[in-house]
């Protein structure tokens, strides 16, 4: 669990004073023992009614029939401090009550819950009948426009609501309507459901529903399936009037069989035709019904979600889709002998959760940060964050500006920020490239700004819908000259939310743009996360329009930290002309060498000051060993899953995951020195050491590895790939094994 920085609420233009920096230091870190109550302005469990503080605790879902949605009572005080103190006794009483009822329930049904069965990775035979598993991966693939993603999203949402861990990955073709039955046009979704928290897409899928056989091929090429993966295949193609298609279908069937896939041909189209004239739209709901039966999902929840999906359509549409769902459910019950239960583990149950993807999380984070302006230009895969905001931003008084281009979008945001309303711009790699000059201006003129970069395949237009971690170096260095700025990377969907709140505060306190990197994997991955308890402390402070002390310069740099307060237009006496030219403390254009050097020093020093308040990153696993994997961004879940598995097998491997890329988190050199080998794992390009002409000297390293090598002067290795899809824990496991063998080999040689 990473606890982000929550700086105390200060006016957006004030530098943190020395006490505030210290305060900030004590708040920062991954300290598990740090509770919310230590955070200033904390109102956890508290709410106000008629000026009196109340305490409330959400009731876990299974007990809501008995105890209601939450337990609450008045603390009979107007004083927040007294309320903070008094709440704990009340919360303890509530918890005792919940435990008591849980115990009663457990004694009533004791013996009925079977222990979790392990997945039998094997032939089709063992998979039949009712099985209890602790995780299951299912994919739905189709031609574009057949609604596979919607089907998977509802399945994921229902699973999340049932209390399961969930991770979804969308498979999106770059075109809106690519030709039908084309391998490259595969559109779909993977849903990984688990008993515990699920942090990544996992390895090969256990089951796949395919609307035609051709789209399955592209997934096979991506290594999405294994021997024994169950394929539920639309059989209509066997009777297609086009002989070529019939032939393709039969060939594919033989092919899949030879590869060890367990294929079931299902007349999905035929069944749907009984209910609707054009099953192309609606098949997905039939499939959803099938999967809900197979995975023992709650049908009422699924139907609610269907109704919600079509809430803007007529009752009739909802009815038809419900009928399709029921038909699919019945069809699976009658015809498919698969029944899987994925029980929820009580210890992973969240008191209250929200099910969101990373882009929605970032959008919600913008709102929770008190940002009122997002200026953007449409770009995949970032745009859905703005889509979400366009829907809900008004709830917190915000506005989404769709600008005429990427440059205008960031210019607009800089304008709002300059005027005291710290704004945000959301984009992806090509947009970042266009915004680069503006980012340099924000650095030079010290304008706070939040830039969210949802990374995609690169360079140029690259792979617009696919994941890559290719923008790290461009974010750090992609501007003429030295342009030090804060660069952070969210590693989880939860961080996509919380980091925006942190980013705005950092931007304002350190008077700098903050680049927050996420990627296409986080953007579309859906996961239940603990519901953030937003307090007013998270919002931007009201606009400061008090008079400015005329004796204070607009860049009154503190020699030690480089920090300075900022006059906001409207403040009398603070009038200054911001300029992107070299300038002195008075913001006057200054061409002399001393002023230029001082400006550079001060802007860089701010990063050092921030770095000085940070703690070293946490190590996942032992603090020393044979191999340390260093990661950043969305690979966290996959890396840690692979490391856990390797450690369970007795291997001495650990991992650490960086959230701050600029400034880098401190203590890296010391941490790295405790391991025999250190390497990064990233989704970006590096030369394969075995490729032609590559040797130790000319090998081009992956981006974080390059930064860390320069930073620590240590021999940091790397393994990176650009597959266009998230890394699988299995693949990382193989990298770990290979590098451990290498380390042992090296030792054997030196011995």
């Amino acid at each position, binding site marked *: 669990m990473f606890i982000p920085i929550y700086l105390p609420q200060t006016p957006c233009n004030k530098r943190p004073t020395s006490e505030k920096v210290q305060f900030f230091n004590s708040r920062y870190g991954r300290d598990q023992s740090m509770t919310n109550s230590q955070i200033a302005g904390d109102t956890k469990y508290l709410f106000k009614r008629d000026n009196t503080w109340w305490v409330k605790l959400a009731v876990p879902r299974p007990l809501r029939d008995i105890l209601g949605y939450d337990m609450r009572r008045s603390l009979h005080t107007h004083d927040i401090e007294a309320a903070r103190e008094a709440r704990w006794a009340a919360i303890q009483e509530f918890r005792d009550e919940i435990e008591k009822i849980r115990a009663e329930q457990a004694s009533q049904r004791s013996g009925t819950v079977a222990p979790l069965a392990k997945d039998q990775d094997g032939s089709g035979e063992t998979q039949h009948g009712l099985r209890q598993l602790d995780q299951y991966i299912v994919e739905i693939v189709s031609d574009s426009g057949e609604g596979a993603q919607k089907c998977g999203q509802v399945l994921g949402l229902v699973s*999340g609501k049932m209390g399961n861990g969930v991770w979804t990955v969308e498979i999106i073709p770059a075109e809106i309507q690519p030709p039908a039955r084309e391998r490259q046009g595969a559109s779909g979704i993977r849903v990984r459901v688990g008993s515990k928290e699920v942090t990544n897409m996992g390895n090969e899928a256990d089951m796949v529903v395919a609307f035609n056989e051709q789209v399955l091929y592209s997934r096979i090429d991506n290594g999405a399936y294994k021997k024994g993966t169950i394929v539920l295949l639309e059989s209509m193609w066997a009777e297609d009037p086009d002989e070529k298609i019939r032939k393709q279908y039969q060939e594919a069937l033989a092919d899949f069989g030879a590869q060890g896939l367990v294929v079931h041909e299902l007349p999905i189209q035929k069944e749907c035709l009984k209910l609707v004239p054009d099953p192309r739209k609606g098949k997905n709901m039939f499939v959803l019904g099938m999967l809900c039966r197979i995975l023992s999902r709650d049908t009422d929840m699924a139907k609610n979600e269907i109704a919600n999906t079509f809430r803007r359509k007529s009752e009739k549409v909802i009815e038809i889709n419900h009928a399709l769902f029921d038909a699919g459910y019945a069809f699976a019950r009658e015809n498919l002998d698969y029944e899987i239960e994925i029980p929820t583990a009580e210890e992973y149950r969240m008191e209250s959760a929200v099910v*969101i993807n990373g882009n929605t999380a970032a959008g*919600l984070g913008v709102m929770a940060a008190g940002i*009122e302006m997002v200026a953007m230009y449409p770009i995949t895969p970032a745009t859905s964050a703005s889509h979400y905001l366009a829907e809900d931003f008004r709830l*917190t008084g915000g*506005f989404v500006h769709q600008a005429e281009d990427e440059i205008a979008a960031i*210019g607009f945001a800089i*304008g709002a920020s300059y005027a005291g309303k710290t704004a945000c711009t959301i984009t992806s790699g090509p947009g970042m490239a266009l915004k680069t000059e503006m980012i340099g201006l924000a650095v030079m003129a010290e304008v706070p700004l939040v830039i969210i970069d949802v990374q995609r395949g690169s360079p140029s237009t690259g792979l617009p819908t696919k994941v890559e971690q290719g923008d790290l170096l461009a974010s750090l260095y992609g501007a003429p000259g030295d342009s030090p700025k804060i660069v952070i990377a969210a590693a989880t969907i939860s961080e996509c939310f919380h980091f925006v709140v942190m980013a705005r505060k950092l931007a304002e306190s350190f008077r700098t743009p903050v680049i927050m990197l996420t990627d296409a994997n986080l953007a579309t991955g859906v996961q239940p996360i603990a519901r953030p308890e937003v307090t007013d402390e998270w919002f931007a402070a009201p606009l400061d329009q008090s008079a400015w002390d005329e004796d204070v310069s607009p860049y009154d740099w503190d020699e030690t930290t480089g920090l300075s307060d900022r006059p906001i237009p409207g403040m009398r006496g603070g*009038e200054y002309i911001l300029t*992107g030219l070299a300038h002195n403390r008075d913001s006057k254009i200054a061409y002399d060498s001393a002023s230029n050097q001082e400006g550079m020093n001060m802007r860089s020093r701010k990063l050092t000051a921030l770095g000085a308040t940070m703690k070293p990153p946490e190590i996942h696993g032992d603090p020393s060993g044979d191999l340390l994997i260093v990661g950043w961004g969305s690979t966290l879940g996959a890396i840690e899953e692979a490391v856990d598995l390797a450690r369970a097998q007795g291997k001495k491997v650990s991992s650490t995951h960086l959230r701050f890329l600029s400034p880098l988190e401190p203590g890296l050199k010391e941490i790295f020195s405790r391991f025999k080998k250190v390497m990064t794992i990233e989704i970006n390009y590096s030369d394969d050491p075995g490729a032609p002409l590559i040797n130790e000297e000319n090998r081009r390293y992956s981006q974080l590895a390059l930064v860390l090598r320069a930073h620590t002067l240590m021999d940091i290795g790397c393994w990176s790939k650009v597959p266009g899809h998230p890394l699988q824990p299995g693949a990382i496991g193989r990298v770990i094994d290979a590098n451990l063998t290498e380390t042992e080999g090296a030792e054997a040689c030196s011995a």
Partner: protein
Amino acid sequence: MFGLKGDWSLEVKDRYFTLQDYCGAEPRWCTGCGDHGILAAVHRVCRDAQIKPEKTVAVSGIGCSSRLPHYMNTYGFHGLHGRALPVACGIKSRRPDLDVWVATGDGDCFSIGAAHWIYALRYNMDITLLVFDNGIYGLTKKQTSPTTPLDVPTNTHPSGALLPPLNPLSVTLGVTNISFVAQIVDWNAPLRHEVIKKAHEHKGTSFVRIIQRCPVYVESIGKSLQDNPARLKLITHEKGVQVDDALKRLFPNHAEHDPSDLAAARALAQDESALPLGILYHNPDAPRYDLMSSVGLGMSVDDKLAGMNKALDHFAI
């Protein structure tokens, strides 16, 4: 003005501003440059309107004209080449209380910033947009600009500009949602002041093209117009600008033009024989984006918290 009210009472608590209150650093433009006069007019319009210096923001891009903010004693934003308008619009979007001025040039606005030019006009936020059009890139030392006349030699086209110059007025008048278009020359002080004043009063984006002399690089452009006033046409109207008869005598060509008539404005803009001076088009009712983008401004913290929780509720399980 200056505190004296109609009933002869004096309100001493109010602040009153003189020209000096708007004057910033000493201008560093060349001797004879038309920009000096425009700056003086801006100072005067600010003084006449008694706008608070701290509530005023002068935004610019890069170029000779874009030094203007430094010569204002207000807030200023001297940003990137071509990008003054997005910044100005961003300022206005959430700070409708600020009086936003933009100083830009023919290269800054019509060339590198052309996309923003069109879009700022479309947004029609309450901004006064002054384009200092001298027909040349001055700060980078004499390159062809979009409005350099044919055959005028420059350092990038030593044998003369190759293409006919862009007509900024007809482009501007072709933009949907345009609300205020005017043209002046820097050397006619009364008209200059009158038009900039009207532009400032207009609620919406007021586009003013100012034909401005660059005596250092292209003296010929300004001089040919000064020497030959028949190439200019004064346009006046009760809904536009009114000038006294003495001023009218300076212009051999004079026409009455109703600025609410877009078709007539376009015809005037396209008339190659004479440059129209005055207000070509004015529509006070065009939709304003700043009124839309400032939605939710000043929402209370309690309402924001409630809204935040409502937003989270949509995803709650």
